């Protein structure tokens, strides 16, 4: 599949919800190590709400669907990652503007806006061991693919690979923000929980684009 169109969004969010429903316990366990064990619960709740919201929005512009999905997440899961993810989807959706389909260009624009929105809201820097450390590589990867004229399926596949590598690299970082900062030393060697969410997101998107 080389384009995502308005009618696909509901299925995409269903797939995303599926991912976070499946990964619920894994994310709980991950967040338990240097956090408060809620990540699996909140991400599942966020994408359940988002999926329910977009289910009946197929007639709306794509950008609006993503923004409404974000707003629903903000209400359903107001944790750090819940609110940041909501912010990401709202900003990403806004960046889509009036686009009626998502190709590599729109996908790149979406993730750049997503990453920027989260950077602004969370005030973290690259290297602080946050979700940003995977989001920025995703946006970079997509922009590089766009420049190279790569198709959506391949571009998202590549972005997902790059995200995995970036996720792996978060193990070397020391947490500066959120609950994990209290466990700064203990956090070393562990992959960042929020970054894991970002990697799962792009992985699911890539799988969706390569169905």
């Amino acid at each position: 599949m080389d384009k995502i169109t308005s009618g696909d969004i509901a299925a995409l969010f269903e797939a995303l919800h599926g991912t976070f429903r499946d990964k619920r316990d894994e994310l709980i366990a991950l967040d338990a190590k240097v956090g408060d064990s809620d990540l699996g619960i909140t991400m599942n709740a966020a994408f359940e709400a988002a999926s329910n919201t977009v289910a009946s929005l197929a007639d709306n512009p794509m950008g609006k669907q993503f923004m409404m999905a974000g707003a629903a997440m903000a209400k359903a899961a107001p944790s750090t990652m819940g609110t940041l993810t909501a912010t990401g989807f709202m900003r990403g959706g806004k960046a889509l503007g009036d686009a009626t389909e998502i190709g590599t260009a729109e996908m790149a624009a979406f993730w750049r806006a997503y990453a920027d929105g989260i950077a602004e809201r969370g005030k973290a820097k690259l290297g602080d061991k946050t979700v940003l450390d995977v989001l920025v590589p995703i946006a970079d990867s997509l922009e590089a693919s766009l420049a190279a004229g790569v198709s959506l399926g391949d571009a998202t596949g590549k972005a997902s690979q790059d995200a995995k590598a970036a996720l792996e690299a978060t193990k070397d970082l020391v947490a500066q923000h959120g609950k994990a900062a209290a466990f700064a030393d203990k956090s070393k060697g562990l992959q960042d929980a929020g970054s894991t969410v970002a990697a799962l997101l792009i992985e699911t998107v890539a799988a969706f684009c390569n169905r």
Partner: protein
Amino acid sequence: MKKFLNDPKNFVDEMLEGIYLANSDVTYVNDDKRCYVKSAPKPGKVGIATGGGSGHLPLFLGYVGEGMLDGAAVGGVFQSPSADQMLEVTKYIDQGAGVLYIYGNYTGDIINFDMATELADMEDIKVLSVVGNDDVASSVVGEEHKRRGVAGIFFLYKAAGAASEEGMSLEDVARVAEKAKDRTRTIGVALSSCVIPEIGKPSFEIGADEMEIGMGIHGENGISRKKLTAADPLVDEMMDKIFAEQDYKADDGVAILVNGLGGTPLEELYILFRRVHQLMSERKVNVKHVWIGEFATSMEMAGASISVLHLDEELDRLMAAKADTPFFKHFAK
């Protein structure tokens, strides 16, 4: 999990139903039980809102009432409420004099209160924020902005609440809260874990003879985990951290809050306080206000925290003022 509850999913909302049934002085707005407000906001007064996760009763909503706060956005257990909920509370309690947010220094809360501030701004409500960060165990001196907010936020509520009741402006109420924040220090110690209803098992493990000094109220890492010692040397060690932070001089006044985390009996809190008082007396510091009990809990966690507010004349007066909420009653002295 051994708790009195029905479906864990309904834990927070059924708790809130109980609270509303018990107290007619508080109610909720926007048809959302988690938007908790005073039934009758006082006209013209600066509004004070707080918010944060459930599981810490009487924190946060328990301080909504006369002489304290005007509203609280209520989150799930150990979860921030949403920016929307904060906004709804803000809109209701604003009496034209603006609203002060006082909440604890946690990323989730900050992100949502920041979002709420932007939303309120769009509704032309002036909002200022003071973020409690009293836990000395959570970061070193010079990095206070990284510290968690724990039980000491009580002093911020008390000071700001009394200031607002006196008719101070938003800027002055914020100034008072900021001052209380700068002069408040807390250190805690945990003896046991707690269970989040929707998770159903303890948040962390701790040995049968262990304690963790400085552990956060969600089980965040503290300074040291070791064998539980006798109460007096434990208090000495904890208070050392507090004495190192501020210059408590002879004849200075302090307010002390000895807070139980939930599972620790009141008897033991008084044993801890006894030693705190001895240490203050050795320094000839006047213990002018004392609160001992449960003020910021982690559900059934066993443990305690000690908070010290270094008074000045204004804070002394504000601490003494009357407060009357469903969860906290204080006769003016």
